[in-house]
């Protein structure tokens, strides 16, 4: 009986602590089931679908850009690319139906970089994009 209470004593706060790490409960990182920030872009479905990010760089640099997105269908996991005037690379997600990250090797130049995530073919389902992160 005491052991059972001990387990409850440890388990319940732990679950509560983990929950607090999810979006909507305050400080931490975004969880797998959630998007980051107040929204995301959805309905990337054909060649006209794109989103442009303007990124300022202090110098020419080689970087990894992480794209967080979600594909409805397995066949759409490689339907996007990331490009600017200085690089172009496919964005390949490794999962579908959940938010996941794809990494792209990229080049930023000093000044403003106009980086576009775009669909390059019609998709079976929809693709959503949450953010890009420069690493």
């Amino acid at each position, binding site marked *: 009986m005491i052991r059972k209470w001990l387990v409850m004593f440890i388990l319940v706060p732990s679950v509560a602590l983990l929950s607090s790490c999810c979006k909507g409960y305050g400080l931490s990182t975004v969880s797998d089931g959630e998007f980051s920030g107040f929204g995301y872009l959805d309905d990337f479905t054909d060649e006209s679908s*794109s989103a442009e990010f303007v990124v300022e760089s202090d110098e020419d640099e080689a970087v990894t850009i992480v794209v967080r997105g979600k594909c409805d269908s397995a066949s759409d996991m490689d339907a996007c690319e990331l490009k600017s005037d200085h690089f172009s690379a496919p964005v390949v997600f490794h999962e579908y139906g959940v938010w996941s990250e794809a990494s792209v090797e990229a080049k930023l130049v000093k000044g403003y970089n106009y980086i576009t995530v775009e669909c390059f073919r019609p998709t079976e389902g929809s693709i959503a994009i949450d953010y890009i992160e420069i690493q």
Partner: protein
Amino acid sequence: MKFSYTKTIIAVSLLSLASVTLFARDSKYTRKGTGPQYWIAYEYCYDLDVPMTELRWKCNIDWMAKTFKDYGYDMICNDGWIESAQTINGNGYITKYNSNWENGFSYWNEYIKGRGMKMGVYYNPLWMTKAAYDGDCPVTGSTATAKQIAGDHPFNDALYWVDVDKPGAEQWVKGYVRYFINLGVKYLRIDFLENYEDNYGTRRYAKALQWIMEEAGDELFLSLVMPNCYGHAKTELLYGDMIRIDNDCFSGEWDFVSSRNRGNVRGVWPQYDNVFDGMVAFSDVAAKGQMILDGDCMRLNKLQSKDERRFLFSIMVMGGSALAIADQYDTADDDVDDIYKNRELIELNQLGFVAKPLSRDIHDINSSRWVGQLPDGDYVVGLFNREDEAMKYGIDFFDDLGIDGGKVENVRDLWEHKDLGSMSGKYEAELAPHSCKILRIRPDGKRRFQAECSSARGGVVLKCQ
């Protein structure tokens, strides 16, 4: 006939290219993303219901050059009350804002250029003056004459509409646009578009806008005024750089900013009666590469307090609107001038910055919280209290901005020009009625760029909390 696989493949490829849907005009203006900073001759005309006098026009140009040019306000534009513009050239195109003026567009363009600024013109190239009609002017580039291209429904006693289905109409419309470009005009404010669409139908309206766009190219900024915006501005998006998203400024008071017919929408022009509702509702089409929103001109001298003035200027900046001063040399005081001169907010317009409300529902209190992101990764947050009582507003660094850990390096108040230092969790403040906070927030750590703050194109939609 011999079947050719090659030709078939080429034909199919071309068809698939043609089927790529175009959503918005691609111009250097839409690629920048925000509207021009300029002065417009509205206030005097509206208050007295008369055309601008030439002397007052000159005084205002001189005042703008002296007071605001160094802050990026680099254009001067006439406004309506245009019926007395009946002085025409051989092609039937107007040469002056008003026939009683001594000097025409050509003279004033040089005068404005001489003061380091450029000229915009308020006119609709679908208009034909009574003078051109009565003189039955030849339409250059065609065998038609003015009377042959005039439509059955005139705009009023002084102006006819050109019917774009009549032979020669294309030459008239494109010729008018080219005429303004050749005069040195950089901005065309095309008014009463709903009247044309109502009288001549959407098909002809779209054809007219297409001709104007084709001739304008990147040489002329196209400002579409009083559009019906059917289908959420489906037609206007294709052909314009900027659309009016709310009713006229009129007397310029708080009703124009936020309270006039608040929360109500019409299916035709003006869909929204106040700036704030219009900005919220059309925020989804406002982005680099899509459409610039135009909240109309500002008469800050007519607002009751510094808070209300800051509020109006701020929502114009956050929405990426044109920053159009209608105050004049003898109606603006130093307090008004100071609002227009906030360099930290002006910088946002000049960077092509466009923010989004946290909700596009004009009834949702979250539509009073706006977020955008700058190329250096900083967030710019606008908190607006539209209400008549003080209320607490805030922004959660993790939930709303997506900053991992919810810790930020610095929060800067762009109206007080003060750094508030590092913070964790959220920023909150009680805002007085009709006041706002514009904050520049520097995240701590990662260089993350949120998709909801990027410029979406095509059929891509923003989904919010």
